[in-house]
């Protein structure tokens, strides 16, 4: 018993981690009192950590330091503007909270132009695939050409699935959209298949933590 206590005192973080791991893992059997307890502890710790981050990484560097250390007094206005959020609980002046909310909405919307240009425009030119491809030594590369054709067909049929306002009267459009949906299923199946590896690695890591870091049964 003494040895156990000494071990716990020597490695408290490992023991705490192991107990928490086991506690949350009980969820796969079913929701139970043990899980519920650790779930609440988890949310409490996470909330506490968010508060710490808010103070350390937002209020301190973006409000306290600039105003009181660098004299940038105008940040006070931002703070006062942010206080308008709290009117959300007021029956009568509730609408005031819509000002900072609207401001954040505008911020988010305004960034869309750059976001669109950055994310999608470069992909456009990369979709211009030649159907005739030559290898570096100048001979015809039929396989690459066929691959590019497939790429185009997939691209166009999947996009056709997402047309909402055209009535799919013509058979071409209807079939194209249907084919597009099937191709998407291929893509989704592939994503599913590739993700399994990463998730299993995580579970393996947990077992390694329990059996090696904690119980020291495996090196």
């Amino acid at each position, binding site marked *: 018993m003494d040895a156990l206590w000494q071990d716990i005192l020597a490695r408290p973080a490992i023991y705490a981690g192991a107990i928490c791991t086991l506690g949350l893992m009980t969820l*796969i*059997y079913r929701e139970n009192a043990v899980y519920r307890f650790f779930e609440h502890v988890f949310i409490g710790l996470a909330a506490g950590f968010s508060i710490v981050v808010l103070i350390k990484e937002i209020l301190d560097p973006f409000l306290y330091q600039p105003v009181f250390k660098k004299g940038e007094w105008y940040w006070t206005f931002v703070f006062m503007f942010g206080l308008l959020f709290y009117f959300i609980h007021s029956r009568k002046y509730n609408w005031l909270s819509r000002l900072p909310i609207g401001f954040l909405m505008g911020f988010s919307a305004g960034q869309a132009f750059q976001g669109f240009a950055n994310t999608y425009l470069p992909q456009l030119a990369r979709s211009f695939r030649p159907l005739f491809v030559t290898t570096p030594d100048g001979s015809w590369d039929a396989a690459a050409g066929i691959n590019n054709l497939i790429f185009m067909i997939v691209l166009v049929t999947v996009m056709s699935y997402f047309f909402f306002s055209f009535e799919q009267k013509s058979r071409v459009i209807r079939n194209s959209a249907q084919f597009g949906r099937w191709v998407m299923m291929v893509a989704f199946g592939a994503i599913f298949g*590739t*993700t*399994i*590896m*990463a998730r*299993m*690695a*995580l*579970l*393996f*890591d947990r*077992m*390694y933590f329990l*059996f*090696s870091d904690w119980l020291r*049964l*495996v090196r």
Partner: protein
Amino acid sequence: MATTPGTSAPRDIWDRLQAIDRRVLYVLLLVVIILPLFVPIRLPMVTMPSTQKLYQAVESIPEGGYVIVSTTWSGGTRAENMPQTEAILRHLMKRRLRVAVFSFDQQGSQFSYNIASRVARDFGYEYGKDWVHWGFRPVAGVVMKSLVRDIPGTFTTDRDGKPTKDMPVMQGIKDIKDVDAIVEIAASGIYMDWIGLVVGANPKLKFGFCPTAVMAPETYPYMDSGQIVGIMEGMRGAAEYEQLVNTVGLATKGMGSISLAHVLIMLLIIVGNVGYIVTRARRS
């Protein structure tokens, strides 16, 4: 596409095959994950060309060469990145190259120090003479730009704050031209920064990348263009690498678990479908 679990009680074996209780599945999964930790399971392994290329690149470094290993990962991806780090360090130290380790991640710095110390012991590497750990370095872009021009000036101290100036391992290393290879083990897209800021500065520098499996596909184009010499892809790449350097490490064990888990899932899919086909055939 989801179905509510069978409302009527399973009648025969075929019905039952379609409605195995999820807890049975979970126990099976736990068994296949835990078992290889204790019982080594050697599965046939085909080495991917990307792993082979990385191995060859390390093999081609001239004797006494200098390699920087950066470990930008944290606990969340330990299962994949830890065996990668260990496998690459084993290879470097087996070849008796000079090694400098550091990290853009605080946790990664601690992890890589522990791993490197252990591997160094195995190969009789002496700290300060054969290898060094520069510790945690925040703000990747700044560090990368500066190490291109001046390595001793960028890493004036090691992880314990000791000056590196007089360490034998730092002798003869001035800038990026004196470095033979850089290997980044990461859970993020940091390879882009290396390629953009460092790789071009020394044409003979070899840049190897060890990403998590999820990250790997997006890095292939850079291997085709030669900007990355080779890729160790997640735990699987690490297992292949362990095989290449003749060691049974965490990745080989992990790959046993993960392969079995894949096999389990595939078997379950088959079992479920067999049950489904038979019952459907009977009904019609």
